[in-house]
């Protein structure tokens, strides 16, 4: 389901698996991941020869809620956050729901062209870059704010990206009285809720990203403390 993730044994030299959102399900028993190179795990994955196999656990975690019938789903991605929303966008489009997808990055290079959801009847894609090199100049949350001024029948905001961006997107959505679901990232060990390692702070105490999440209602989150401060 869109929002779920898989837990990947990227390298035997590492102690932990690495979680990645399911970015698409091209066919049965097959899935797409969009992986940004960050450290050793993602680098090792990138170095794998085509056709080599890695151990994948999952899909794990919860998923995004559907929007109201007929209303527009507003998807907001910061950088690689598009990986967490791509499958959702495709599913909405497939179900015939109107989708507005906003993707932002610091510069043009941060926008992953070829990796956007397949353009299609129901989807409107808008880009922003902090430096204005592509799309609207400014943050994707500013883009979101300007769209929320005028979009007809908005259903819900779905956001994925860096902590500061999520906090801001949630604030913008709430200001417009819209519910907002965010996909969070935390370092994970077990991926099953067993180790209590991947918690985030919510109004109802610490919740695990791997089993209570990774999708959370932004209204439940305490963005203070931890990485979401």
């Amino acid at each position: 389901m869109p929002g779920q993730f898989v837990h990947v044994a990227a390298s035997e030299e590492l102690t932990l698996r690495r979680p990645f959102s399911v970015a698409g399900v091209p066919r049965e028993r097959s899935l797409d991941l969009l992986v940004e190179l960050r450290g050793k795990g993602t680098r090792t994955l990138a170095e794998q020869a085509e056709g080599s196999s890695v151990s994948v656990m999952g899909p794990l975690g919860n998923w995004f809620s559907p929007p109201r019938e007929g209303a527009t789903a507003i998807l907001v991605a910061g950088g690689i956050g598009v990986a967490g929303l791509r499958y959702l966008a495709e599913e909405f489009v497939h179900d015939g729901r109107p989708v507005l997808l906003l993707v932002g990055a610091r510069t043009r290079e941060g926008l992953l062209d070829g990796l956007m959801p397949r353009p299609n009847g129901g989807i409107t894609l808008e880009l922003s870059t902090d430096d204005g090199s592509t799309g609207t100049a400014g943050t994707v949350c500013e883009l979101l704010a300007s769209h929320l001024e005028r979009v007809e029948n908005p259903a819900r905001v779905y956001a994925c990206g860096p902590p500061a961006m999520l906090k801001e997107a949630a604030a913008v959505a709430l200001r417009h009285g819209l519910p907002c679901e965010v996909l969070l990232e935390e370092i994970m060990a077990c991926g099953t809720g067993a180790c209590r390692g991947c918690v985030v702070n919510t109004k109802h105490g610490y919740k695990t990203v791997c089993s209570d999440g990774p999708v959370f209602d932004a209204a439940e989150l305490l963005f203070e403390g931890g990485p979401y401060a």
Partner: protein
Amino acid sequence: MPDITTKITGLTLRNPVVLASGTVGYGPEYAELIDYETVGAIVTKTITREPREGNPPPRLAETHAGLLNAIGLENVGLRRFLSEKLPEAAELPTEIIASVAGGTPAEFCELAGAVGERDAVRAVEINISCPNVRRERRPVWDDPEGTAAVVTAARSATKKPLIVKLSPNTADILSVAEAAVGAGADALVVANTMPGMRIDLEKRLPALGNVTGGLSGHALMPINLALVWKVSAAVDVPVIGSGGIATAEDALEFLMAGATAVQVGTALFLDPGAPAAIVWGIREHMRMNGAETIDEYIGLAREEKQRCTEKIAAD
């Protein structure tokens, strides 16, 4: 077919591989990923009298060949453990060892008594060694008298096998081990995690919300192995090895150093199939070497060392 059962005072395990406290939660969390029939026992997450929220995130950080955790003993507390978690765990096809930790001997007594009286609990493990909770200069895990007080209290409350989990963070584990055994411990786990930390260079902050956490995984193995060697020579109760065990070879090193069983924790995260693979590997090693019982491995390296020393002395 080699006999792979092992005995921990009062408890016979079908094999020497036990899942370590805190890494499989209360058990059911891993039920889809681990075939519990393949493991000797599981130790449930350490519980405290009252529920604990645990530490602020981030709670995990990877290090070279290791993992730091600062969970801060998040747990549901004694009441919910008994009413919800234990009955679920009891359904799993393996033995349940319940882990408890208190702030005072009286709390250890209450906890050990309360979990020990449940049929589903085959043994009680008392955790005096969690580096994420206490912060005194001389913590109980480094203090033979404090340890004796806690173990005496727990011992008075239950007749079930009582296992005491020691810490590697002491210069004198022998005195602590002897105090625990003297106070009635039936077995010792050697050992828990070592305090450690990482710094996130991008954030310029400690990687853990709690600053420091417990180091587990491969990096820890040589440290805890040395402690197993030391402790198993000095006490006459079984020692359960813990620390970085991920393969049958790792487990065999612990057995040969003197462990009667081993606990596997961190290795589960990369491979939930690790415990089954370890059991398989031990059995294969026994088969290839004509060993009939696990006992033939326990402390083997000490015996061989002794033999070498005598041989050299005789030459």
